[in-house]
C-alpha cells in the first residue's frame, strides 16, 4: 500500500490531493480568478498560490484522514507551466518533503492528466485529446512514450477561448470557458470563420484574430448576438479537435478516445466526440471538472505510478521547467 500527496500549481489553479493506490482520498483546489477582461499573470498567480498553500494542505490532510507520517512520497508538478506559480508550489512540496523526510517525485503535468483520466474512466489504451488553457495535443501511447500525433501549431484551444471571453468581457468565474459554454447554448446562427487543420495539427490564432477584429461590429450591427458568436466559435474549434482526433484514431487503428484537460469538461465537446466515436464504433471516455481541471490528485497518482516503478527525483534535480514535452518522459509503468 502506497500513499502519495500531489502538489499542482502550474497555472491559475492550486491543487493538493492525496491518493492511496489508485483511490482518491482527497483532492482540494482553489482557483485564482481575475476580473472580467483580464488574464492571470505569473506574479499575482504565484502570490495566490503562496497565500493558499497551507490552508489547502491542511484541508487535503484532514479530508483524507491521513497524517504526514502515513505518506510515502511527495509529488509536485515539474512542468510545463508558468515559471513563478510552478516554483511557488514546488517550494511548498519540497519543504514538506524535507520536514516529513519523504522522497520526492517531479511529475510532468500532461502525464498527470493522462494517467488520472485512465484511472478514473478505466480506458485502457486510448487516443488522448488533451485540451486546456496551455495545451492542445492529440496523443497516443506506443513504445513506452506518450507520443504526440497532433498539436496546435500556435496557441492552445483554451487560450483561444479565454481570450475571446475577454473580448466579450465575460466573467472568469468559475472559468471563461464555462461561461462561453453556457452562452453558446442559446446561440443559433453560425458565423463562418477560418477552419485550420493541417494533417493532425490545428491552428487557432487565425480564428482568434478573426473574432477579435469583427466581434464588436457584428454585435453593434445586430447581425449576431454574443450567444451566436460563442456558439460559432465552439462549433468551429471543437469540430477541428474532433476531426484531428479522428485522424489520429484512423492512423493508429484505435477504438478508444479519452478527453483530458480543463477544456475537456465542456459538455458540447464531449457530445461531439461521442457522436464521432459512435460513427466509427469507438468508445469515448471523459471525466468531469473534478479531474479534468488541474488538480493535485492527478499529480499524486502519476507520481505514485512512477514511484512504484522505481522512480525517485534526486534532490539536486527537483527543479521546475516551463517547457516539458509529454513525449520526453519514458513511461516505465506501462507495457510496450
Amino acid at each position: 500500500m502506497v500513499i502519495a500527496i500531489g502538489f499542482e500549481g502550474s497555472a491559475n489553479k492550486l491543487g493538493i490531493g492525496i491518493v492511496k493506490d489508485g483511490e482518491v482520498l482527497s483532492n482540494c483546489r482553489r482557483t485564482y480568478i481575475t476580473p472580467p477582461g483580464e488574464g492571470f499573470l505569473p506574479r499575482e498567480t504565484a502570490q495566490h498560490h503562496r497565500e493558499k498553500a497551507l490552508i489547502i494542505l491542511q484541508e487535503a490532510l484532514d479530508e483524507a484522514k491521513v497524517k504526514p507520517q502515513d505518506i510515502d512520497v511527495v509529488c509536485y508538478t515539474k512542468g510545463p507551466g508558468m515559471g513563478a506559480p510552478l516554483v511557488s508550489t514546488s517550494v511548498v512540496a519540497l519543504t514538506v518533503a524535507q520536514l516529513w523526510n519523504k522522497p520526492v517525485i517531479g511529475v510532468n503535468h500532461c502525464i498527470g492528466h493522462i494517467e488520472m483520466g485512465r484511472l478514473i474512466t478505466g480506458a485502457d489504451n486510448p487516443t488522448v485529446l488533451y485540451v486546456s488553457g496551455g495545451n492542445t495535443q492529440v496523443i497516443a501511447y506506443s513504445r513506452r512514450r506518450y507520443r504526440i500525433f497532433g498539436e496546435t501549431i500556435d496557441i492552445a484551444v483554451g487560450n483561444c477561448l479565454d481570450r475571446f471571453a475577454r473580448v466579450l468581457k465575460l466573467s472568469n468565474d468559475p472559468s471563461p470557458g464555462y461561461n462561453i459554454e453556457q452562452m453558446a447554448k442559446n446561440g443559433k446562427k453560425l458565423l463562418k470563420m477560418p477552419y485550420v487543420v493541417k494533417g493532425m495539427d490545428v491552428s487557432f490564432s487565425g480564428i482568434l484574430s478573426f473574432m477579435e477584429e469583427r466581434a464588436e461590429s457584428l454585435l453593434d450591427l445586430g447581425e449576431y448576438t454574443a450567444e451566436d458568436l460563442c456558439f460559432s466559435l465552439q462549433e468551429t474549434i471543437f469540430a477541428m479537435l474532433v476531426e484531428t482526433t479522428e485522424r489520429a484514431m484512423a492512423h493508429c487503428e484505435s477504438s478508444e478516445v479519452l478527453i483530458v484537460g480543463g477544456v475537456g469538461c465542456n459538455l458540447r465537446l464531449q457530445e461531439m466526440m461521442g457522436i464521432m466515436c459512435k460513427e466509427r464504433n469507438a468508445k469515448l471516455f471523459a471525466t468531469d471538472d473534478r479531474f479534468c481541471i488541474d488538480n493535485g490528485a492527478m499529480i499524486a497518482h502519476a507520481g505514485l505510478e512512477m514511484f512504484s516503478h522505481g522512480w525517485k527525483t534526486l534532490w539536486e534535480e527537483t527543479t521546475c521547467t516551463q517547457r516539458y514535452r509529454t513525449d520526453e518522459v519514458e513511461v516505465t509503468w506501462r507495457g510496450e
Partner: protein
Amino acid sequence: MSSAWEGFELFKQGAEGRVYKGTYLGRPTIVKERFKKFYRHPDLDEHLTKERMKAEARAIARSKTAGVRTPCLYLVDFESRRIFMEEIQGSITVKKFINDTLSDCSEEDSFRTILPVATEIGSIVGRLHASNIIHGDLTTSNMLYSLSTEGQISITLIDFGLSHVENSAEDKGVDLYVLERALLSTHSNAEKLFPLILQSYKKVNVKDSKLVLDKFEEVRARGRKRTMVG
C-alpha cells in the same frame, strides 16, 4: 447512380470517410464516401465536405502532371459525397509495409528493404512541392506500397482532401513537419528514415529545397519552444 454503386462493399473506415471496394465500368474501383458527420454543424459539414472533395479531385489530377503516381479518378459525385477511383491492386499502406518489415527482419535487413521506399517517398514529396502542391496530410497511411509486374517498387499517394496549391515555402515546410512527426510517432526507425527522405527530397525539389528546409527547421523549433501553461 444507384447501379454504379451496386456490389460495393465496405473495406475500411479512414480518417474522413468510409472506403468501399467494388467494380465500376468493369474496373476494380475504390469509392471514398465522406458521409455526413453529425458531430459538426450541418452547414460546416456541407462546406468542408465540398471543399475536401474538390481538393482531392484537383490534386489527384495535378499530381499526375507532376509525375507523382495517384489513383485514376473515375467519378466525383457531390450529391452522394462519393469519389470513385482506381483501386491500387495488391497494395498495402506504407505504414503496414514498414511495420511488417521491422517485425519480420533483422535491423540490417529491414533497413535495406525500407531504404528504396524512403528514397521514393522523398522524391515524390519533392516532385509535389516542385509543382507547388501541398498535400496537407502526409502520413504513411496515405501512401500505398505495391510492386509492378517487373518487381519494381511503386508508391502511390492518396488522400488529398487537405491539399492545396500554393507556392509557399512555409506551407511546404509544414508539410514536411507533419510527415516527420507522423513518422516519429508511428515507426521505431523514424530517426533513420526521415533523413533519407529529406536527402532525396532535396535532389528532386532543387528549386526551393533550401528555403523549404529553413522553414521546416523554423516550424520545428517553434514546436519545441512553445511554452505550455495549464
